């Protein structure tokens, strides 16, 4: 038996076991805070959006837990995703575009940290084809914090009132704090 064949089998086995471990998750639909008091220091909300020019098959996130979103949450257009996940460091690993195309990231530009007890906005995955014949979209994690806030106000007002929303994407952003400060001043 050739070594390359053995390596391939081992690689496929590892790949299958990694993929197999990922927990399939779907966005929350009910506007009620589901973080149990006992787990307030262990879990937090992950808020993100996907803006895609065509429906994607899967989105994989690894880290504190392995998560997999399916095409149900990755339809053409803009989809917001709100998940209750374990606090800790994560990386957006890969996006399965179709049966034959996978975009892999797994680097610092796609990493984020989920703080417990908060709504952690990590950004909007922008996935649009650039050229006419370009079958693989250009991917970018865009900071559209104000739009995400409007989404939460519209669809998850109760959760937003119970939990602080913070920016957890790449770089630093004070927008949520600014809104918070102004709102507090207005209510005083």
């Amino acid at each position, binding site marked *: 038996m050739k070594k390359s064949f053995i390596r391939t089998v081992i690689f496929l086995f590892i790949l299958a076991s990694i993929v197999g471990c990922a927990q399939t998750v779907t966005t929350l639909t009910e506007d009620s805070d589901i973080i149990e008091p006992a787990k307030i220091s262990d879990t937090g909300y992950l808020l993100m959006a996907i803006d895609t020019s065509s429906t994607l098959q899967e989105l994989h996130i690894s880290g504190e837990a392995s998560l997999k979103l399916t095409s149900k949450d990755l339809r053409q257009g803009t989809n917001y995703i709100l998940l209750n996940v374990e606090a800790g460091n994560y990386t957006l690993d890969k996006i399965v575009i179709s049966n034959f195309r996978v975009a892999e990231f797994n680097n610092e530009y796609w990493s984020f940290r989920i703080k417990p007890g908060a709504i952690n906005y990590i950004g909007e995955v922008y996935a649009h084809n650039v*050229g006419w014949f370009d079958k693989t979209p250009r991917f*970018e994690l865009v*900071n*559209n914090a*104000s739009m995400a*806030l409007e989404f939460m106000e519209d669809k998850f007002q109760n959760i937003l009132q119970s939990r602080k929303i913070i920016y957890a994407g790449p*770089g630093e952003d004070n*927008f949520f704090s*600014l809104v918070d400060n*102004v709102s507090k001043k207005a209510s005083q």
Partner: protein
Amino acid sequence: MRIINRTGMFFLGLFFSHQLLANLIPIEKLFQAPEVALYTLSPDGQQVAYYQLMPQGHSELRLFEPSTDVTTKLLHVDSSFVLKSYDWIDNDTIYLTFREETAKRTGDLMKGFVSLPKQGNTADNNFKYIAASGLLLNSLPDQTDRFLFMRDEGAGDNIDLKIYTLTTDDLLNQRFAKNNRLKLHLDDALHYYFDRQTETWFAVTFSEKKGELLLHYLRKGTENWQKFYAWRDNDYRFEPVALIGQDKFLVLTNKETDLVAAYEFFPATQTLGKLLYEHEKYDLQAATVSPETGKLSSVSYFRNSRLHTEYFSEKNHKKSISIEHFDAEKQVYLVAANEETDRYIYLVTASNFPGVYYYVDGTTDTTLKLGSVLPDLEKYRLAPTETLHSTNDLGFEVEGLLTRPVNNSNQTLLVMPHGGPIGVRDYDHFDPQIQYLANRGFSILRVNFTGSSGFGKNFLGQGKGQFGRQIEKDIGLIVETARQKYSYQKACSIGSSYGGYSATMLAIKDPEFYQCIIAMYGIYDLPLLFNSSNYKVTESYRESITEIVGSDAALTQEDSPIYLVDKIKAPLLLIAGYADDISGIEQSNRLKYMLNLYDKNVDTMFYYGVGHGQRTFYGEQHQNVYISEFLHKHLNLSSEKANADVAIIANELAILGDVFTFDRVVKKDSVRGFNYYKKSSELGHPRANFNIGVYHEQGIHLEKDLAKAQEYYQIASENGYGKASFVLANRYKSSDSAESDLAAVANYMELAVEQGYDEAILHLAEAKCLGIGTTQNSQECLSLLEKDMDLTTRLPNQPINLSGTFRLKTTAKIIMENKFNGLAQQEITNFVTNRYGAIDPTFAIKVSNYGLYGKGGWSSRERYLEQTYQIPNKVGSQIRVSYGFESNLQTGPQQFWYYIIRWSYKGASEKDYNVLSYKIKSAQYHRIIRSTSIEITELKNEDTEYKVEFFQLDGTFLKALSFNVSDKHNP
């Protein structure tokens, strides 16, 4: 085209500037594509090629011969294509590139040759498509049918550029013979250029290791490439102009000076030589060298933001004067030159003059007007621009451009900072937005603040990191200068990109002066520039932003509008594009969010599918109409207009109605859309009146009232709206209406056609061909049928669009029911056969099955239930006939033949005869079985004969089957 002598041109200028002209300019006339463009001279200078936009929407590549004053169409370019460029291969052939309008910008350009018509020949079929990849490097126009063509012959991702000397025939047949390949290879070349005048080759390479872009050159008669210069993040300009001696070049650079100047440059030592020209205030934009002497021939720069060329050659100076004499305020651009034959094409333009192209023949000293860029605007007086200057606290002279309305000033100053802000500037060019706002009574002030290009390195550098600081101080300085010269009762700030930011900051810093703000595609949260996406947090990206904005750490909350919202007092119109990948929609949304949080007066226009500004003329139109509406509303400006202008205002309101109702360009707001239509309708706009009629008819936004709907349709029709006339015609046509009036149908259809409503053409053809409600008229019948056919034909020689049930049904009905005799009948037949194809006299229908059809028995699928001519009198009974075709002609599988099917029924009385349907169907011989069916939709009181008949396109009978529908066949 007319020859005008110099004196004539001068007086023509005076005449235009003193005419008393119309007041408001329709927005469609300002924001529209140039009617002529891309003028070029043939190698012998005797012919001019240019691009002409036609009223029908397509374009033409045209040829004009100044000696004979004859214009010839060279090529019809369909509206779905955009001509990008063209070059003369020689005096008989033009090479052109074009792109499909819908294709992405990254797509490859299409290429072809156009042959000029020889004497006695027409210009038809003169286009030859080039399938080979590559691009024309130099047309060598002084050599007949010879040109340089470059193509990439590298395998996979490797670039390996090869250059060939080819003939048109070589390229069309993709003959890239080795002996036609030039031996001038330079490793890793990304592009080659050839300077015909000095016969010098240039090549570009990129060193990834050093991050350098290198230019190399190869002089005539030498074999080794020499390094010319390397560019690496230079903060100065360095631009080669021409070879002016043995390894000596003329360059434009500000490497060692503040201003861009003309220098000698020696590549061997990489040193600058003699300073040849430096202006005291402005960067040079361009320079030319005399081919005879190798000396500087002219330099160009923007003086008072207008292009000015200084000539050092007497000959060129003479040409220039002949054009500039026209009007000192106008700018003259040399578009094409042929020094050898002393012939030139110039574009003369100004901020209040979109431009005219001229042909100058130096041998006869004559000037010929070639074409006007926007002839629609010639009857209007456009607003001129004056330049203002003031010295800022840093000692720099700052320039402002003030455009004041020609008449009807509303005493309002609009301060409009430009985008960028670094390395960008405003020019005194024709600008449709400036002219639109000036035409609506506003004065518009633009400022070339520190950071703008064209005034030297120091001036540009002083703007860096000065967002909301020195830049706005400079703007304020020029605003004061303008206010000292003219008095203004009101003021607003308006700008796009950086200008959107600046407009907001100006109003924050001086809330007493600015009474409204229009911020477009802007940035309002400066720290967000450093983290707007995961790729924008990288060090290299942050460095590039820091270079312009200043460092992240140095920014304070005093620099970003979103932190200063409490200081915004004026109403703000925020315009943005969801597809803006430069500013990003988030910037505008943040400001909107904060303004709402502070309960400020904010109006938004966030456009779907729009990036960093509008990309279409229609987009520009409705955006500017909305801006004007916002300004009038918030500044309480009178909207009373002279009668002649009411129609223009009404049209603009209807445009806004469209934006909020139909166009899907912004979030739909049908109530706002309705309100705009209502206002527009009150001002008599025909289409708005029609829409109000529709609202009444449908009971949307208004009480359902058919009589009122009819009234509005009537008004719209009387005011020339074809669709209203068409709708009225159909109302009279309705057979179940008591008001059915066939004469009225024909009259309204005729009116609709006259008013340009194309859908009515075939309806009117039906009336004229069959004499329904009007006198039968064979000539009008044919002419209308041909007019309808033109609508379905995209281009000559393209397949006919056969879609449209109504078209097929009506044509069949006209063929079968017209009562024309002799020649008229023959003409109808000829028309139909020309349209659909020749009649095959051996064509025959062969019935394979017939009878009662439907679901029944054990199967849930529809099928023939019984082969019979006796059909039960039962609603839902379906009669079907299946058939094939026979012909003695040998045809290929793509051959189509056309025939007519008519279904009818006949009761006991002769009067009880009704045609149920007509159809024109296509037959393809290799497809064997087709079927046609009819359903019984109502119970018959007596025995009824249902008949299906097949005819040739000239009405010749082919086949018929009759079915008896009767209670006696009921099960």
